[in-house]
């Protein structure tokens, strides 16, 4: 099975473990990935709401490149939810909005590019693994089932909403990731916050709001007794993992909820070494949780030149908070 692959910036930086684990399992899944050459930024989460046509032109360039380079595949796969949504949005709007289509193609023509709307299928990695590879093949690949590991499956908002091409079984309460985790032998908990907001870029704009949104998810996963929260989005992973400690400082709580990519758990179940899957690079160590399934996890890899920041002194009055009551929730 051959696919064009749009990695996006996160997979090469903050979400490196996602890329590494994908690379590690890709062969077993018989997925042949051809990276779109000379790709550029997808515009992330805000650009489309700020400048519509330029934002679509930015994404349109990636689609045009994919169309140009496509060699036996009309599918572009993205593993990052924001990349996936932006590519899907531009593809869809160029197909249905003639004026936008003309504008984008006029801009692309400046760089001798053109995109024929409708010629590329945009799909998320999970969709391809679930539908093209299929659960039967996955089950056959499992050599080290994740027995006894309680997993909260977390989607975030962007891959399931708006689901313009109806690729997911429910935009409100999808169950695809759960099925995959069950196929790996994990125990899947009912996690009602699975499509709630991870706070997106609120961490940069309004950290109080972000901490509260992160707290809800971490508290929820803890409350439902998950050992680990599994995600498919670099931003969700970053927010819940990297800001978990700051959130704990902010609310004076002590949650420990490791956040891993679903591809990392797939790799473990397929018997691949944790190091090869990028496990150990997470801020909140998964070591203890993964000990349940006997996975030898390397010691935390210290991030060079990035000493953990101390909690900033709050200026003025603190936000009214509800933290202390929920300390009992953490295990």
């Amino acid at each position, binding site marked *: 099975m051959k696919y064009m692959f749009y990695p996006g910036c996160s997979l090469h930086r903050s979400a490196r473990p996602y890329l590494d684990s994908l690379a590690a399992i890709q062969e077993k899944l018989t997925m042949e990935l051809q990276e779109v050459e000379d790709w550029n930024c997808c515009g992330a989460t805000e650009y489309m709401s700020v400048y519509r046509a330029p934002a679509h032109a930015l994404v349109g360039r990636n689609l045009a490149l994919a169309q140009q380079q496509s060699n036996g595949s009309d599918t572009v796969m993205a593993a990052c939810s924001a990349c996936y949504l932006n590519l899907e949005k531009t593809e869809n709007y160029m197909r249905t909005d003639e004026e936008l289509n003309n504008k984008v193609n006029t801009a692309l023509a400046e760089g001798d590019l053109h995109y024929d709307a409708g010629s590329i299928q945009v799909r998320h990695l999970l969709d391809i693994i679930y539908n093209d590879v299929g659960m039967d093949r996955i089950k056959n690949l499992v050599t080290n089932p994740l027995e006894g590991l309680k997993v909260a499956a977390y989607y975030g908002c962007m891959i399931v909403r708006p689901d313009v091409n109806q690729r997911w079984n*429910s935009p*409100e*309460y999808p*169950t695809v990731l759960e099925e995959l985790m069950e196929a790996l032998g994990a125990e899947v908990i*009912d996690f*009602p*916050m699975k499509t709630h907001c991870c706070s997106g870029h609120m961490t940069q704009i309004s950290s109080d709001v972000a901490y509260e949104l992160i*707290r*809800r998810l971490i*508290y*929820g996963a803890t*409350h*439902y007794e998950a050992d680990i929260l599994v995600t498919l989005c670099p931003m969700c992973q970053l927010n819940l993992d990297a800001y978990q400690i700051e959130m704990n400082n902010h609310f004076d709580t002590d949650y420990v909820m490791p956040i891993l990519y679903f591809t990392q758990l797939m790799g473990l179940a397929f018997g691949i070494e944790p190091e090869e899957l990028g496990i150990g690079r997470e801020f909140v160590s998964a070591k203890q949780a993964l000990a349940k399934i006997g996975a030898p996890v390397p010691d935390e890899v210290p991030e060079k030149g990035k000493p953990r920041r101390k909690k900033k002194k709050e200026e003025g009055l603190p936000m009214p908070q*509800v933290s202390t*009551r*929920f300390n009992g929730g953490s295990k």
Partner: protein
Amino acid sequence: MTGEEAQTNGHRIGVYVCHCGTNIAGVVDVEHVSEWAKDALGDRGVVVGKDYKFMCSDLGQELIQKDIEREGLDRVVVAACSPHLHEKTFRNATERGGLNPYLCEMASIREQVSWVHTNKAIATEKAKAMISGAVERVKEHESLEPFRVPIEEATLIVGGGIAGIQSALEIANAGHPVYLVEREPSIGGHMAQFDKTFPTLDCSACILTPRMSEVGVHPNIELLTWSEVEKVEGYVGNFAVTIRKKASYVINEDCTGCGICWQKCPKKVIDDKFEVGLGYRKAIYTPFEQAVPKYPVIDHDNCTYFEKGSCKACEKFCPTEAINFEDEDEVITVNVGNIVLATGYDLFDARRIPQYGYGRLANVFTSLEFERMTNAAGPTDGDIVLRDGVTAPKSVGIVHCVGSRDRNFNNYCSSICCMQSLKFAHLVHERTGAEVFNFYIDIRTPAKEYDEFYQRVLDEGTRFVRGRVAEVTDAARLPGEEGKLIVQVEDTLAGQQRRIPVDMVILSAALEPRTDAYETAKKFGIACSANGWFTEKHPKLDPVATMTEGVFIAGCSTGPKDIPATVSQGSAAAARILSYIEMGELALEPVRATVIAEQCSGCRICNDLCPFNAISYDAETELSEINIALCQGCGTCVAACPAGAITGTGFSNEQVLAQIEGLLMLNVEPQPVAEPA
């Protein structure tokens, strides 16, 4: 024979052009068209050309009548609205004038001309062409006589809910035989599951069970419970219906309904039908105490004897030896003249909206579960309690429009849920004193005494939050939410998100067509709407008839409705049938298709295409045959036959070709006509 006679064939045709107020006259120059018809079509047999404000009025019709008598017309063309509306009117007028009614033809210059064009000159020319076509066609018309079919006196009613019960009693009380088929072991339908009925709060069982027992003992009603219709053959007045009476393993003649069998039966089964999964029954059971008939049935799939080969406790304890484990299905055929389909509805499966938690969160209930819970004869003896069976809720959230008015599921309004939710709110207040929140989109209380009930519930202190619920969750995050169900909702009146913790949530789930509604419709030769409800012959003017003569529909099978509307439809269907029975025979439209035997190759292409199951293949003659009583003259087979072996009275090749020829004649040059002022 002169030249003129050759073209007119001696016909004397009257052309009548209707203004339809300004509907037609606003776009078509009707005076001009009527004069043109008389002048320009004179050599084609038109001797009268008139226009009139409303041809469908008595005075308009009289014009036709009088001209037939005075001018000796032998054909009539009315250029007016679609024949769907007034073909019958003008055929009747033609008949009153002394002509065969089928010698009248309509040209639709409203739906096909004035309503779809704005340019008066072009519209006027098109109207002329339409009339030219109608004139040529009507010359090919023949006098037709309606078919007369005798009406069998007996009636089949499918579905023993309140709609079917009402129909059965109306017809039976008028002295005519009725077969009432119900697939469950008892009649009563959904109404038997309810505790109270809105807005009067009278007890559902108290008003329903007298009707049920009346049905049970009525000499004119043959009750066929635990039975299903397998096949329907024939046509209005003369249906042959095959019914499967499922094996009940109980000899009804010997059974006294004493109940010892189900007391002694060791096998407890979750009752997912009558108790909607909230209670238990035995493997031998009647669904509820007042069941009609009183005879139990054995649930074959759950009976220990059928599972393991031993038990037979019911047989051992039965005082009248009424158990027969050798019982088998029995297939019977009954002849009936008319059929009422009153097959009811299914409740929307609330699991389809997982974010509302039904099936995941224990204390989320469906509306039908709650009905059973409030019922004094239900699984909790009428106590309103949480899933643990003992704790009374201190706060209850009722979510409206679950699966209704939702583009993801059903666009329609389920009509009864507002009043049902208000009733629930009242019952919760009355029995537990709990705080009640109603989460609604709009409150719809349009019937008699309904809005007064709403005001009463408001006065009782029920909280109303306007907005569609986003989710019901047990994921607490604020003080006071621990251990509760939290209803997350956008309060669209306050303009803010709210989280309301409650102990219990009731989902007012949508009414949906029966899951097998399409199969049922096909079996009886009727149609379903896109949503799956049975389609009426006319949604306003003929709401209980269908396009298939002799098959009537009533109650929720045609769309969600409350009990009064359901009962009205049951009576209405009965009234229609009683008038047929009273007539003794029925005149059917003679516009029918016929197979020309010499040209039919027996290919059977037409057989499956017929929407009314009117065509069958005769293996002996190797020809397809059309049952004229079932044929509705739609013309599908005529168009489909590769050999051109099917022709239709009223739409023969000659008639259609003549009409096309007439349309193309356009022996008038386009004239500049003044634009409307």
